[in-house]
C-alpha cells in the first residue's frame, strides 16, 4: 500500500523529518503520534504532495508520488486538521466537486454521501454555504467528502477536534469500515486513548525521526514497559528524548 523510504524533507533547506521509513498496509489503521513539533504534519504534507522531499521515495501501490502525482493522488483522500472549504460552494456542490475530481460514479457516490450525511446529521444542510457552518460541521463536511471517494489510502490529521462525541464515534466506525473494506488509514492524533483502541499499529515521531513503531506490544517491548498503555509509553519515550517546544 503506502511505502515511505528514506524520506527526508522540510519547509526549507533545513530538514525537519529525517530518513523516515514506514509502511501502511491495506486494511490497517496506523496511528502517527508525537509531541507538537515532532514532524507529524510535515510528514503528512510530504505524503499528500504539498512538500517535495529532499531525498527519499513515497509510493502508493507501486505508484510514485514524484513520478506520477496524478495517479498517486487518485488513490488518496485527505482530511486536514482545520477544515478547508470553498466559501462559494454549498455542501451539495462540494460533494459534486469531489465526484468530478475523483471520477466517481455519480449515483453510487451520492448514495454513499447520503449515508454519511445522515450519520453526521447534515442531510438538511445540503444547500448551506460554509459561512453558515460551525467548525464541527465543517469538519464533518470534510469527512463526508473524503469518505465518498474510493481512495486506497486515507490520511487523517487530528480528526477529532471540534467533533461532538456522537460524531467521534461515527467517524471511528466509518474509519474502521473503510479499513475493513481494504483501505489503509494513516491517522495523526493526540488522543492516545482512542488511538490505542482503534489503531492497529503506531509510528511515534520525535525530532523528525521515528523513535518507535509497531503494534502496542512492539512499543511495550521497545520501551521496556510490559503492560503499559500507549499514553505511558508515549510519555516515557518522549521525555527520554527530552523534546523542547
Amino acid at each position, binding site marked *: 500500500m503506502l511505502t515511505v523510504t528514506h524520506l527526508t524533507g522540510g519547509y526549507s533547506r533545513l530538514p525537519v523529518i529525517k530518513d523516515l521509513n514506514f509502511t501502511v498496509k491495506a486494511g490497517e489503521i496506523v496511528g502517527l503520534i508525537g509531541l507538537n513539533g515532532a514532524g507529524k504534519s510535515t510528514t503528512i504534507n510530504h505524503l499528500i504532495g504539498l512538500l517535495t522531499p529532499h531525498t527519499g521515495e513515497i509510493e502508493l501501490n507501486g505508484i510514485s508520488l514524484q513520478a506520477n502525482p496524478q495517479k498517486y*493522488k487518485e488513490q488518496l483522500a485527505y482530511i486536514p486538521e482545520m477544515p*478547508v472549504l470553498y466559501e462559494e460552494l454549498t455542501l451539495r456542490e462540494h460533494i459534486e*466537486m469531489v465526484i468530478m475530481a475523483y471520477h466517481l460514479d455519480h449515483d453510487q457516490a451520492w448514495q454513499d454521501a447520503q449515508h454519511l450525511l445522515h450519520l453526521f446529521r447534515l442531510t438538511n444542510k445540503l444547500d448551506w454555504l460554509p459561512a453558515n457552518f460551525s467548525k464541527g460541521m465543517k469538519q464533518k463536511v470534510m469527512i463526508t467528502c473524503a469518505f465518498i471517494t474510493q481512495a486506497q489510502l486515507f490520511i487523517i490529521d487530528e480528526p477529532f477536534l471540534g467533533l461532538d462525541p456522537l460524531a467521534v464515534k461515527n467517524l471511528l466506525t466509518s474509519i474502521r469500515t473503510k479499513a475493513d473494506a481494504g483501505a489503509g488509514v494513516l491517522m495523526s492524533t493526540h488522543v492516545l486513548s482512542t488511538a490505542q483502541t482503534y489503531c492497529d499499529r503506531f509510528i511515534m515521531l520525535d525530532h523528525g525521526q521515528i523513535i518507535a513503531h509497531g503494534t502496542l506490544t512492539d512499543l511495550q517491548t521497545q520501551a521496556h514497559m510490559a503492560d503499559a498503555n500507549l499514553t505511558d509509553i508515549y510519555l516515557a519515550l518522549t521525555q527520554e528524548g527530552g523534546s523542547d517546544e
Partner: protein
Amino acid sequence: MNDLWRQRQRAYRRLLLKYSRYVLNDHFVIALLFILGGFSLGYAQLVQNLTPENAAWWVWPVSGIWLWGWLYVGSITTLLKPPDPIFWLPQEKASGQYIQRAFWWSLWRNCGLQIIGLGIISPLVLRGLGMNSWDLLALGLTQLLLKGTLTLLEYRILTKKRNVQLATKQEYLVLFGTQISCLILALRVTCWGGLALAALCLGVVGITTYRLEDYGIDWQLALAKENSRMARLYRFFNLFTDVPAVQGSIKRRKLWDKLLPQAKGNPYLYCYYRTLVRNPNLSGTYFRLVGVGVMVVLLIPGVWVRGAVAVLWLYLVMNQMLGLASVHRNNLFQYVWPLQPLQQRKALQKVMRYLLGGVTILLVVGVEIVTKNWLLSGGMLVILSCENAVLTGFYLPQKMDKLLDTQK
C-alpha cells in the same frame, strides 16, 4: 499629538502610494488615457459651439448640479484608529488638538479638490453663461466658502455638544438650501451675490461653532465616519487588487442555482461558475466594469474613438477578471485532489470567453443605440468577437502560465 498626526499622515500617504501602483496599472492607464481623451474631445467640441446667446437651456442646471455635487467630494480625514479612545483617555485636550490639525489639513485638501472641480466645469460656464474671469473667481470663492462651511459643520459634530445633533440636522437642511441658493444666484443672477450669501453662511456657522461648548471627541461617530471613509477607499482599490480589509461576504444567490451550468467533468469550471456568481468581489467588479463600459460607449463622441475604447475595454475587463484564477489559491485541495492542470486552463478560457462575450454584446448594443447604424454595430461585433478569440486563445494562456506557476 502633532508627531502622531504627522506619523499617521506619512503612513496614509504610503498606503495611497502602495495601492496607486495597482490602480494605475498599464492596462487601466491606457484605457483611462483613451477615455479621458475621448471625453475631452467631446467636451471641447461641445463648448466650442456655445455662446451665451445660443447656449442650450441645460448649461446652467448642469453646471449647478456639477458644482453642488462636487461640494460633497472630500470629507474630514481624521486617520483615527479603534484603540485611540482607550489610549488617549488621559489626553483629552491633546486629542482635541489632533482633530483640529485633521480639520485644517482636510480643509486645505478639500479646497484643492474644489478648484479641480471648478476647473473642469469652467469652460462650460465661461462660454455657455458668458462669465468673465472675475465672475469665475467669485464663483470659485463661493465654492470654497461653501465647502469650508460643510467641513466646519463636520468638525463641529465630531467635537461639540451632543445636543446640537438635532440642531445640526436642521442646520444641514438650511445649509443645503443655502448651497442651492448660492449656486442659482451665482449662475443665474450675479456671482458676487452668491459669494456674499456663501460668506454669510460661513460666518453664521463659524460664530455658532465658536460659541458652542467643547464636548471632546465623539469617538463613536468619529471612528464610524473614518472607518466608512477608509472602507470606500479600500473598495475602490479592491477593483484593481485584493485588499485584505475588503473581502465581501459571499452571497448565496439561490435564484442562480438552476441557471448555472453543471459543467460535468471539469471541477474547475463547476467551481468558477459558482464563484463568479456568489463572490461579490468578482461579480461586482464585472458588472461595474460592464456598466461603466456601456456608459463610456454611449457618451463618447466619434466612431473611431468609440471603437478604440470598446476594444480597450474588452482588454481591461479580461485583465481585471483574472482574479478568478487566484481566488482559490489558498485552498489546499487545489493541490491535493487529483485535478488536472489542463482542466483549470480550459475552464478559465471558457469562463473568460463567456464574460467577454457578455461585454461584447452590451457594448455593441450601446454602439447601436448611439449610431443607429447596423453596419457599424455589426462591424463592431465582428471586431470585438475577434478580439475575444485572440485574447482568450493566445493572450490568456500566456498570462495563465505566469499566474498558475506563481501559485505553486
